[in-house]
């Protein structure tokens, strides 16, 4: 429970920062200074390679990281749950087809493929979202399919069929609500992965250079002498933010799983 709360607190902090970024930036000192100036009164976390305030970059960077993380996780969860439910519920040809597709995507080395796709497509936030979403859905699809296979054979679904309920009704009113906790846990894990992936792609220079993200902060710091100049403030805060954001979603997902286990243990699950 504590882990879950800690996760929620960190996530809330980052989402609040992302939404109110312009207001927060207006409240802190952020003069343009010499490149790689150390932390000072005017630049609380120092400056980057072009003399811009690192804290301001971090604050605006949270927007890109959160947006990419949440959007790509949302899209991949939608695709994954659609494929998983259809495949598990209808079985037969659709299951064979989607099952094959899931297996195909699962055996593909995701990160190298994402790097390849990101390099081939024009670098933009939307393309990163597309790349992550398109290659991350099979994980969700696989677990959802397994759960739906179990549900479709359950007595209450059998009963609904006997009462003349159609497939759409059963799926929307009974299957989806029963896999929703699974979807939510997968969604939170996907956000964590997506944030990490966005940072990885931006770090190797395949991100959108027109938006500051934590990954691009790391990229410019590494590519433009941050390490050699000893400007730790140009890369450590961004690294911490990526780790914290990823960890917070992981903690949240773990907390949800713990809660589910506890609920199961005391026999409250329907």
């Amino acid at each position, binding site marked *: 429970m504590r882990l879950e709360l800690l996760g929620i607190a960190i996530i809330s902090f980052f989402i609040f920062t992302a939404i109110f970024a312009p207001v927060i930036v207006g409240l802190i000192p952020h003069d343009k200074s010499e490149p*790689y100036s150390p932390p000072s009164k005017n630049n609380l976390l120092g400056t980057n390679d*072009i003399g811009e305030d690192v804290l301001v970059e971090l604050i605006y960077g949270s927007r890109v990281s959160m947006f990419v993380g949440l959007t790509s996780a949302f899209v991949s969860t939608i695709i994954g749950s659609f494929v998983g439910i259809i495949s598990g519920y209808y079985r037969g040809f659709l299951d064979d087809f989607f099952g094959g597709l899931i297996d195909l995507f699962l055996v593909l080395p995701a990160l190298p493929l994402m790097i390849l796709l990101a390099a081939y497509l*024009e670098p933009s936030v939307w393309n990163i979202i597309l790349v992550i979403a398109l290659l991350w859905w099979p994980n969700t699809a696989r677990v959802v399919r397994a759960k739906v296979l179990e549900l479709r054979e359950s007595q209450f679904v059998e009963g609904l069929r006997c009462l003349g309920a159609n497939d759409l009704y059963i799926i929307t009113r009974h299957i989806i609500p029963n896999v929703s906790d699974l979807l939510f846990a997968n969604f939170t894990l996907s956000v964590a992965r997506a944030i990490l992936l966005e940072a990885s792609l931006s770090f190797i220079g395949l991100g959108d*250079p*027109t938006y500051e993200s934590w990954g691009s902060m790391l990229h410019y710091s590494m590519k*433009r*002498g941050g390490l*050699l*100049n000893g400007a730790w403030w140009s890369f450590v805060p961004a690294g911490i933010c990526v780790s914290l954001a990823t960890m917070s979603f992981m903690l949240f997902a773990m907390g949800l799983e713990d809660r589910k286990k506890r609920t199961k243990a005391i026999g409250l699950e329907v």
Partner: protein
Amino acid sequence: MKKMLVVFLFVAFSVAGCIGIEKVQDGENVQKILKIGTTMPIKADNIFVDYYFGILESVFNDRLFTIDERGKIVPELVESWKVEEDGKVWILSIVKNATWHDGEKLTAEDVAFSINYLKAKVPGFKAHLALVDRAEPIDKYTVKIILEKPWASFLANLVVVRVIPKHVWEKVENPLEYYGEDRNVGSGPFIYKGFDKTAGIITFEANKNYRLGKPNVDKLIFKLYKNTEAELMALKRGDVYTTYFYARGLDPIYVPALLADQNVRFLVETNFGVDNALWFNNKLYPYSVKEFRIAISYALNYSEYSKTITAGYAETPKAGFVPPGWSYYKETRELVRDLAKAAEILDSIGFKDFDKDGWRDLPNGSAFTMKITLRSDLPESTRLAEMIKRDLEEVGIRVKLVPVDGMSFRKIAEQERSHEVVISRTTMWGMMMWAGYGSGYVDSRNIGWANVEDQELHRIVDEMLKTTDEARVKELAHKIQDLYAENLYVIPLYWGKIIQPYRADKIEGLVYNPMMGILNKKTWFSVKVKE
């Protein structure tokens, strides 16, 4: 098991130790080894396949002409030359004491063969030798080059022509696929010894029979690094004594970190290329409107680019584009930021915010977004683009940055010319090609990033291509710079310096050459390895 491990470690350390000793001792004499770090991505040791290995060719091969420290074209393998038929026929007398590394004499046959062979079989040389009809030897040491039409600045093209041994290459049908043992036989001061791809080491040994004498160092080693950080760490450790990258010095952002090391010193040299410039596609509207380009020039913050991108190792450029190092450089007006003036000009030509969305629209009322294409693989280019975007947005010009990789960039800007605006740099040799003074990049009939079809420019370029009279060349050089300044087909963003770091405790006597950097004859005969 333990015994085996001890034996293995003993053997391993012995072998490693022997290799270490071999590197520094040759019999009783300690070898003088010059170690140079580079981040040039060399993948293959064939000069026709790998562009960057082709750059190292200057180490083991002499060329017909070269560039001296002041940027002048001077003969290398050529002793004397004359031009006949108004620049249509070039007769070169080559030196008589040049030999190939395998002992064969270098003759006019080799030179004529090289020119004909490169033109016919190596795609990269087709443009350089576009106007060459044929080359033929007149006698053992004289070669005649016949052009299809007069070309006064043909010498600049001969600077990049590789002279290769006929007896090696005449049997090779496809030079891009040839990896025979003799592929790197040259006539230069060093002999190619090998490329260890796993270790990332390219080795050359001094040519004791070189026509100008044996170079000062016995061995030349290039160590390849994936990134500048690793390369400079190696420099600080003393693993390499200096660094090299063609037509580019050290990114100035690294200078403060190296200044702290008292063993590292710098050569700071004039850059004959333009570090970064904003190239308009002058055929497209609204970039075809002179006043629009001038307004953009007033919106840019040149001093800021110089301060942040080059850490102050650059100066604010002049509108005439051509940097001050060049002969016949002409002082033109300095580029300054004046937002009020930019806004005033934009207003006067009808670029106003008609729909009150905060962005200026085209005079017909439709929305306008300037698309700037840039190289995503060059971090300083993306940083610069971000700053330009912000500056232009201050005068209400909406900007979209289009980052592309190097290959796509060339396709867009050179082959398709589908760009609106690009950010790119020029090299020293690039400034010399076509009619010189950067005309190759500007003129729509050549590389043409600026895609200019202005008749006045074409007339000047055409005359420069034909003129050999120095007084007239000077006049035309001034005219073309005035034309650049008046029309701003391209806006230089800063004129930078070339920064060459080296370990002062390990070496001295490096000489910088504006085209090939430290890889030049003067360096080979003046450098001293101290250890």
